[in-house]
């Protein structure tokens, strides 16, 4: 049994297989707490968690906040546009000031890749990456893996296809690192303009043929098409994307009968996923959200156990 030694959780690329398994195991123990009539345990009583979000978020921020509260930690939410950063304060200064208020854990989302890593070096508090640019979103990948493990009983040996905007997706990157470390076979699929250059450095198969990605896959993890990307002419129209790569009942005919449909949200109905599929029997999209709280409780708990 490994112990958690890290101060922070910045990404899955830096974690070992054993550390990832430790988080998933702990999350399994924490899941039951959210089903109790009194959804709270006193474990992090007296700890302060700051939620520092520089990008919009409902799911991740709410999920982290509920996870912290269900462990009895105190939480403070800061968003960039209502903070002193609009007066020109630098990120480092803002965070140094917050740390001077004696906080224990900083959960941070930032549009710049590497921002949480910079902070982790600057502050003594634990830093949890809640999404940095196009780099990593470790807790999302962990909750995806937790959900897969819960539904399929294992991760090792499964065929998992990640479909959509791989180039701009931190969810894809974290999933690739985590899943392959645990022994899954990962395929990425999307139009060539949305597959990043340098993909060959990742331990994945690449296909531009959606049927190929669907066929034989145990799990389809469908990514959101970031509507703002369309302006940069990466694909001709949303309609064309939906036609070629959107997962609908027609394309699902190629899938295994026990395929799992996942999506990190927010979903664009009728673009990357049709409403029939999103709400259909294979979909575990809302269970992913439920599991997110358990996974984040485990992460908050483990980083607070650092250096033991």
């Amino acid at each position: 049994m490994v112990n958690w030694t890290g101060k922070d959780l910045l990404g899955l690329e830096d974690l070992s297989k054993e550390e990832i398994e430790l988080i998933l195991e702990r999350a399994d123990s924490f899941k039951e707490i959210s089903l109790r009539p009194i959804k709270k345990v006193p474990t992090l009583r007296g700890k302060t968690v700051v939620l520092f979000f520089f990008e919009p978020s409902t799911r991740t921020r709410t999920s982290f906040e509920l996870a912290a509260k269900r462990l009895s930690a105190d939480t403070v939410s800061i968003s960039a546009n209502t903070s002193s950063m609009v007066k020109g304060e630098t990120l480092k200064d803002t965070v140094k000031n917050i740390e001077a208020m004696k906080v224990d854990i900083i959960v941070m989302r930032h549009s710049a890749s590497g921002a949480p890593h910079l902070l982790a070096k600057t502050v003594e508090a634990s830093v949890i990456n809640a999404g940095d640019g196009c780099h990593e979103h470790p807790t999302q990948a962990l909750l995806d893996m937790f959900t897969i493990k819960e539904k399929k009983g294992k991760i090792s040996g499964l065929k998992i296809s990640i479909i959509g905007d791989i180039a701009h997706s931190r969810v894809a990157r974290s999933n690739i690192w985590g899943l392959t470390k645990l022994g899954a076979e990962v395929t990425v699929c999307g139009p060539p303009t949305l597959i990043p250059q340098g993909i060959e450095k990742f331990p994945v198969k690449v296909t531009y043929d959606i049927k190929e990605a669907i066929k034989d896959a145990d799990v389809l993890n469908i990514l959101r098409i970031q509507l703002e990307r369309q302006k940069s002419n990466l694909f001709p129209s949303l309609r064309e994307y939906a036609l070629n790569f959107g997962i609908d009942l027609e394309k699902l005919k190629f899938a295994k009968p026990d395929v799992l449909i996942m999506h990190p949200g927010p979903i664009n109905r009728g673009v990357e996923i049709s409403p029939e599929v999103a709400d259909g029997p294979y979909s575990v999209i809302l269970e992913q959200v439920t599991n997110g709280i358990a996974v984040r409780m485990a992460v908050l708990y483990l980083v607070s156990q650092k250096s033991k």
Partner: protein
Amino acid sequence: MAFREKARILDEEGMRRVLLRITHEILEKNKTISDLAVIGIRTRGAYLAERIIGLIEEIDKFKVPLGILDINLYRDDLTLLSAQPIIHKTEIDFDITDKKIILVDDVLFTGRTIRCALDALIDFGRPKLIQLAVLIDRGHRELPIRADYVGKNVPTSLKENINVKLKEVDGIDEVVIEERING
């Protein structure tokens, strides 16, 4: 820290008799068992709880519900512990409100584990009452807590350790007193 076996205080037969007596005491004290539930504290308390439920079923032909409690999240020494405790699932899949709860653990020592368990149980509902059953009471309480059912009272010194072994986890049923050596 090394320990040397000093005395064997229960063997398999002894443990069986002790659990049977505790079960009879539980039945005698509680009269009706339709509202009874047995909740064991992980790890060994859970197996003892399971055995008590089996004995109740043998005697009264009625199976009372089993719950398993992991108290690590309620510990008052989480920040002081040198090792990271392994947290397991709590499994109580029935409503404990208005139930008579028999809480089971292997060894009653400082009473802090039981304090955690009581806090945890109250978070699940409002039981009619909670009674405590332990296999061994070794003394040295640090909190005002006592057991309703005791398998064996074993006066110990703080240098000693009580090692409860159960077939389900250790392959053997026995309780031994061990003495700390070299320090």
